[in-house]
């Protein structure tokens, strides 16, 4: 009977374990905030690098 139930579960994809409690706690937003900060830091770094290279290019052109 249990095997049959398992088969049914697989068939209808009902009781598939997901991070539901984790999500209902609301703490998932903390993770999203942390990753967003990391991404923002990376982008700011890329942006400043981009500007520095632009300055170098201008300097070389004016030499």
């Amino acid at each position, binding site marked *: 009977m249990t095997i049959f139930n398992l088969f049914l*579960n*697989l068939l209808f*994809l*009902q009781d*598939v*374990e*997901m*991070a539901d409690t984790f999500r209902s706690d609301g703490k*998932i*937003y903390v*993770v*999203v905030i942390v*990753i*967003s900060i990391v*991404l923002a830091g990376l*982008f700011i770094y*890329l*942006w400043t*690098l*981009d*500007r520095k*290279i*632009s300055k*170098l*290019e201008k300097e*070389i052109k004016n*030499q």
Partner: protein
Amino acid sequence: MKKTWWKILTVILLFYVVIWGLLGPVPRQPILNETIRNVYFHVPMWFSMMTLMVTSLVYSIKYLRKGRINDDTYALGFASVAIVLGIIGFVTGSAWGNFTWGDPLPRDPKLIAVEVGMLIYSAYFVLRGSFEDEQKKARLAAVYNIFAFATFMPLVWILPRLTDSLHPGNGGNPAFGKYDMDNAMKIVFYAANIGWILMGVWVSSLVIRIRLVQNQLNEKN
């Protein structure tokens, strides 16, 4: 900074992907569970890598036709960032496979093909290092780049389909439909691909510009 709009688009797209990729709804599937969200981060690495490889190939052909050393610098920049993305794709894939396939490095045709392909591409950089003369180095590297591309693509795209792979969308002749995604996921997936491709182009443009500045400095000295 010239033409900043696409850089801003990159930032917006990737923030959307990270935030909605984690919070958005995904289909409930056994074994995969929440890890299906890796599709937004692991798969775009490969798409981004392929795009940069194609661009690198175009510049290599351009160099062979016109003989301008700058085109070779472009080809090198795109190829080197492509390899970095490939390594990230490989490592993320083995982390994901460790939990869903039960093995970080299973004997999967797609994995073996990629390993061979990456070795072929790494020989491109070894080859470059072994020449002193600029033009000779550039010409041989360009020819080898065409060869590497022509070997890599069939290895990764065609060969795994002739046998059977653990990767979805391999074995037989399937299309995108086999990725287990619903429509809500597809929107994020496409945004992720565009975002990560743009990110790859951005980083390689920085690498290329530094090398161009270096070239100019070398000419002056």
